């Protein structure tokens, strides 16, 4: 028998718990709006969250004629879009520039990771908390994926919103806006994490003994892992949350364990994505949308900093920016996104999968005295592909030093509204949930 934790005191068997989990996943009570399955140009979204904020000048908006203290030291290379250049760190993406579109006039309201992160993930500054510790007015909005989860309920036991990566933070402070907010726990992201040694981790459940879903390959090992979870629950170590119910139910299904198992891929395919956390996480995201998960978010890192903990390190390159870009972040991003786009296209999934890559802001056009670039909220880039959007376009332009938008300024709220539009979530639906981003759909993309 499994005793549920603090949320309820109903004793329940493992089988009963599984039934509860399945019920929670399937969501038995929907209002009238939800009964209408939305139809849009995209069936799924892969949201690549470049935490820390990549430089616009060192990636997709180089300014070779800017003064030396501004311009990137990297050479420019042509893309397939006439007149559009990237830095030389992105040759693979330059070669595929006819498969995606670029937003070069993004801007946001804050240069604090925490605040800008909340805006980037929810489309709103409401409830954001920065390093100053002061909450911005209003209730924090649900993150984009939770909104999608509210509207696009999965059938068949899979969560409709998965995050591949750990919880975001700057310093030791968590970020507001990663979760479902007022939509409730049923719309919280279901978290997976790629571990370079062990494989895919299900964060909601500590499987112990280094076990990951793909290693639960026989009944005995699976039963042992589940018994272990039950023992921990009986000790009252943690409440029996809806997330745990979901995870528990998923682990019982061979097909979901298989879905999480990157070992199902050929070594050559895994190599193509890059044997980095981000690369393998992108591959996992592709496996998830293949199973029709509506929204998958991939976090480049947990922490904003490049040299601290958490996998590949973030994009917050206050110092050593150019070295890190050359040695790591440039080649990694170039390879992973390029392969993701190729792989989705080869499988016939790109037309139905919207891929968005963006950080919370850009970086100072003027190079600082630490061979780095600092936070810059006034201008940055986003990459958008698939999901029925028109590729090979550049929407918006920046000024001569990529300091400010020159034409067609765009916001995270606009990007959020565009994602909703692609998925067929109407503004009426959004408003009915109190979820309107306040942004305008970027119509040129459709």
């Amino acid at each position, binding site marked *: 028998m499994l005793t549920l934790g603090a949320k309820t005191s109903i004793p329940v068997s493992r089988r009963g718990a599984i039934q509860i989990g399945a019920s929670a996943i399937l969501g038995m009570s929907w209002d009238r709006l939800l009964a209408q399955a939305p139809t849009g140009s995209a069936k799924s979204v892969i949201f690549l969250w470049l935490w820390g904020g990549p430089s616009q000048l060192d990636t997709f908006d180089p300014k*070779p004629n800017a003064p*030396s*203290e501004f311009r990137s*030291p*990297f*050479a420019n290379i042509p893309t397939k879009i006439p007149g559009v250049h990237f830095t*030389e*760190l992105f*040759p693979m993406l330059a070669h595929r520039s006819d498969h995606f579109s670029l937003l070069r006039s993004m801007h946001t309201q804050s240069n604090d*990771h925490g605040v800008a992160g909340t805006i980037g993930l929810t489309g709103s500054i409401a409830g954001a908390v920065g*390093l100053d510790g002061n909450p911005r007015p209003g209730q924090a909005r649900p993150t984009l994926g939770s909104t999608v989860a509210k509207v696009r309920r999965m059938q068949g036991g899979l969560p409709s919103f998965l995050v591949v990566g750990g919880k975001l933070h*700057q*310093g030791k402070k968590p970020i507001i806006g990663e979760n479902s907010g007022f939509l409730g726990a049923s719309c919280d992201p279901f978290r997976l994490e790629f571990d*370079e*040694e062990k494989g895919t981790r299900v964060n909601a459940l500590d499987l112990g003994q280094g076990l990951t879903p793909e290693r639960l390959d026989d009944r005995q090992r699976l039963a042992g892992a589940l018994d272990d979870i039950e023992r921990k629950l009986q000790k009252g170590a943690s409440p029996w949350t809806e997330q745990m119910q979901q995870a528990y139910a998923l682990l019982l299904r061979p097909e979901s364990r298989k879905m999480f198992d990157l070992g199902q891929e050929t*070594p050559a395919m*895994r*190599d193509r994505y*890059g*044997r*980095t956390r981000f690369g393998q996480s992108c591959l996992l995201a592709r496996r998830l949308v293949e199973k029709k998960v509506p929204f998958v978010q991939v976090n480049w890192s947990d922490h*904003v*900093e490049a*040299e*601290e*903990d*958490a*996998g*590949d*390190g973030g994009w*917050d390159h*206050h*110092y*050593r920016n*150019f*070295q890190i870009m*050359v*040695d*790591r972040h440039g*080649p990694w991003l170039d390879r992973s996104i390029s392969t993701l786009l190729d792989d989705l296209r080869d499988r016939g999934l790109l037309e139905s999968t919207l891929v968005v890559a963006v950080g919370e802001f850009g970086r100072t056009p003027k*190079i600082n*005295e*630490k*061979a*780095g670039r600092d936070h810059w909220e006034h201008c940055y880039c986003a990459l958008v592909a698939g999901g029925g959007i028109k590729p090979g376009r550049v929407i918006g332009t920046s000024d001569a030093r990529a300091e400010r938008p020159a034409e067609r300024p765009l916001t995270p709220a606009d990007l959020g509204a565009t994602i909703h539009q692609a998925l067929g979530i109407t503004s009426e639906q959004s408003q009915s949930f109190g979820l309107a981003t306040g942004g305008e759909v970027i119509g040129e993309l459709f």
Partner: protein
Amino acid sequence: MVAFCLAWSLAQVVMPQTGQEEKARQITSDGSFKSHLSWSPDGKKLLFTRIHKGKMELCSVDQLQGSKVEPLVQPPPNTPHFDGSWSLDGKQIAYVHDILQGTDGKLQINIVNADGTQPKVVIPHKAFEESPRFTPDGQKLLWVSTRDGNQEIYSFEITSAKVTRLTQNPGFDNNPNIRRDGQRVVFSSSRYGNFEILSMNMDGSDTKRLTNHGSLDIWPSFSPDGGKIAFTSNRTGNYNIFVMDENGGNLAQITNNRGVNNFAAWNPSGEEIAYISNKNGAYEIYIHSLRK
């Protein structure tokens, strides 16, 4: 003074023709990201930076036995430390230590015994200090600092702490590597608009441009006899290892694959070049033989 007698001459080395597939043996296989490769003067170990389980640290590996990767500094610091290089007598290693403060970091230059004991600060953080390299006599370090506004190359006398600035221009000057006779330095510079390979005298005079290509040329490394320079370039579209004469002529491509190939390091005899590549997926160390 260090003797420069090399039992082996590069005249006996066969440089591969451009486009020829490389022959290299794989040394590591742990799957973690690696960078900043440096070969021990006795030819037995390779020193490198590894990011493993979210931590960035200096490690070494026996180049013959390969699989046993060990953290260098003991006890291992909790903060990132990277980009190590050996003194020519093999007794010490200079490296960059990142002191994390809040959400930022401060770089300083440390020296540690080759067995990883007794780390100590030699160049405290003043600006952002990187890429320390011992001069062959062990009396000085060349390193990169932003103390005058952007990355420049400086020398530091270890006993007197005297600092001399060697480069002065608005571009980035970095990745220094010293010829074994202690007379020339090869380095990367963005002063021409993108990163090129240059060389100069040890006092910063007589700067010569060695590459002139609209692509990235970085991480140069003198061969032991000083006649050749290995470096990384993306002129083929991806990063590959090249070798050229010390005057920039006679270019040869060493690696020829679609991965990232970087951080060339010569073995003491000049017969082999170690490098880091993800050509087979993960970033691992390979050794390419130049023998006939």
